[in-house]
C-alpha cells in the first residue's frame, strides 16, 4: 500500500514532466529521458521487486493517458522491463555498482522496442531508422547517465519507507 501511495504521485508527476517539459529538451534528433522508466527501474532495483511491477503499470498508464498512442502500450512495456529487472533478486551480483547501469541499458532498449512493436501492430507509421537511431539511442544514453542519481534517491526513499525489510 505504501508503495502505491508513494508511487502514484511520483509517477504522475514524472509522466506530466515527460509530456510538458522534456519535449523542449530533446537531443540528437528526438531522444529524451524516460523518467517513468527510470523511476520504475530504480524502485525495482532498490529492492521492492513486486512494487516495481505495480510502478510499471501505474507509470505506463499515466504515460498512455497523456499520449495519442494506444492505452496500455507503455504499461505493458514497463511491466515487462520491471519484471526483467526483478530477476536480479537473490543474485550475488545484486548489489554490484554496475547493475543499475546494465539494467537501464537493457531496460531502455526493451522498453522502446516493445513500444515500437505495439505501435506498429496498431498501424502507426514511423521510420525505424529514425526511431532506433534518433530516439532509442540518445534516450538510452541519457537514461544511463541519470539512473545513478535516481537510483540513489529511490534507494534512500525505500530505506525510509521500509526501514526493516530493505535488505532482505
Amino acid at each position, binding site marked *: 500500500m505504501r508503495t502505491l501511495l508513494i508511487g502514484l504521485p511520483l509517477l504522475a508527476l514524472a509522466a506530466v514532466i515527460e509530456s510538458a517539459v522534456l519535449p523542449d529538451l530533446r537531443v540528437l534528433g528526438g531522444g529524451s529521458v524516460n523518467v517513468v522508466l527510470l523511476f520504475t527501474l530504480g524502485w525495482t532495483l532498490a529492492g521492492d521487486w513486486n512494487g516495481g511491477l505495480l510502478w510499471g503499470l501505474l507509470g505506463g498508464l499515466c504515460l498512455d493517458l497523456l499520449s495519442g498512442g494506444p492505452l496500455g502500450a507503455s504499461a505493458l512495456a514497463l511491466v515487462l522491463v520491471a519484471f526483467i529487472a526483478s530477476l536480479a533478486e537473490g543474485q550475488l551480483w545484486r548489489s554490484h555498482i554496475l547493475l543499475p547501469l546494465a539494467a537501464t541499458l537493457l531496460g531502455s532498449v526493451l522498453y522502446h522496442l516493445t513500444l515500437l512493436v505495439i505501435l506498429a501492430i496498431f498501424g502507426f507509421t514511423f521510420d525505424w531508422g529514425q*526511431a532506433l537511431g534518433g530516439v532509442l539511442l540518445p534516450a538510452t544514453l541519457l537514461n544511463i547517465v541519470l539512473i545513478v542519481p535516481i537510483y540513489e534517491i529511490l534507494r534512500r526513499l525505500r530505506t525510509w519507507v521500509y526501514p526493516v525489510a530493505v535488505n532482505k
Partner: protein
Amino acid sequence: MSRFQTRTALAIGLAVISIALLIFGTTPALEPFRNSVLWPLATLQQNVAGLWRGLVAPFIPTPSDATLRERNAQLETENEQLRAEVVRLRENENQLRILTGLIDFAESQPENDYLVANLIGRDPSPLLTYLIFDRGSDDGIQRGMPVVTGAGLVGRVVEVTNRLCKVQPITDPASAVAARLQTSRQTGVVVGQVGGGLAMEFITQRVELQPGEIVLTSGLGGVFPPGIVIGAVSAVQQLNYEVQQRADLTPAADFNRIEAVLIIINFKPADFSPFFQATPTPVAPVAP
C-alpha cells in the same frame, strides 16, 4: 509458492491488464474512467506547463530591452497576419470566378466560429506528434474539428475528454489532407513526413510547379473546410517516367512555436459511410 512464482504471477496478471487495455481501451464504456483519471493529470499538467514556461521564458533569446522585445513581437504578429491576408486576397481573386455559380451555396454557409485553445503538452513519445490543448467536450469540442493558427492549418481534433483534446498535426506521418495548388487549381494530397515536414503527392505532371506556390485545403473529402493555407512549395520532385509529381512543402504554421490555436467549432466533417454500405440485392419477383 515461492517469491519468484508469486512475482511471475503478478507480472502475468499486470501484463494481461495492459493487453486488455490495449484491446478494449478505445471502447466508449471506458470513457468515464479515462475522464475521471485524466482530470487530476490534466490539472497537474496545466500547472507544470505554466511553471515550465515561466522558468524558460527568461532564457529565450530575445532583444535585451523589454520595449524592443514587445515591439518585435507585435511586428511579427502583424507581419504574419498581413502575409495571411495577402494569401487570402489572392485566393479570393481566384475563387471569385469559380464561386459565382456557387454563390447561393456559399451564402448559405455560416461563418466559422472559433474557440481559442492553449497548448499544454505534446505527446510524451518522441515517435508520435500529437498536441494536447486545454479545451475539451465541456467547451463544445468534438472529434474531427479543424485546428488553425493565424498562419495556417495545424491539424484536427482526434480525441476529446471533458477538459482536454488531442490534435493530430498535419505533419504527423499518418495525416493526409486533400489540398489544392493556389495558382493552377490542381489537387493533390498533403501528407506528413517523419521528422515534421510536409509533402504534396498525386500532382499531375501537366502542372509546372514553382517553389513558393501556396497550397490550400481543397475541402475534398469533407474533413477540412476549403481555402485554409497549408504551406508553400519548397522543392519539386518531378521524374519524367512517373505518372505524377511530388512537392516538398514548408508548413505555414510554425509547429515548434505553437502556444495557442483556434479550433473551428462549427465545422462538421462529412460522413461518407452511407455511400460505402452494401447495396441490398433486389429480390426477383416470384411467379404466380
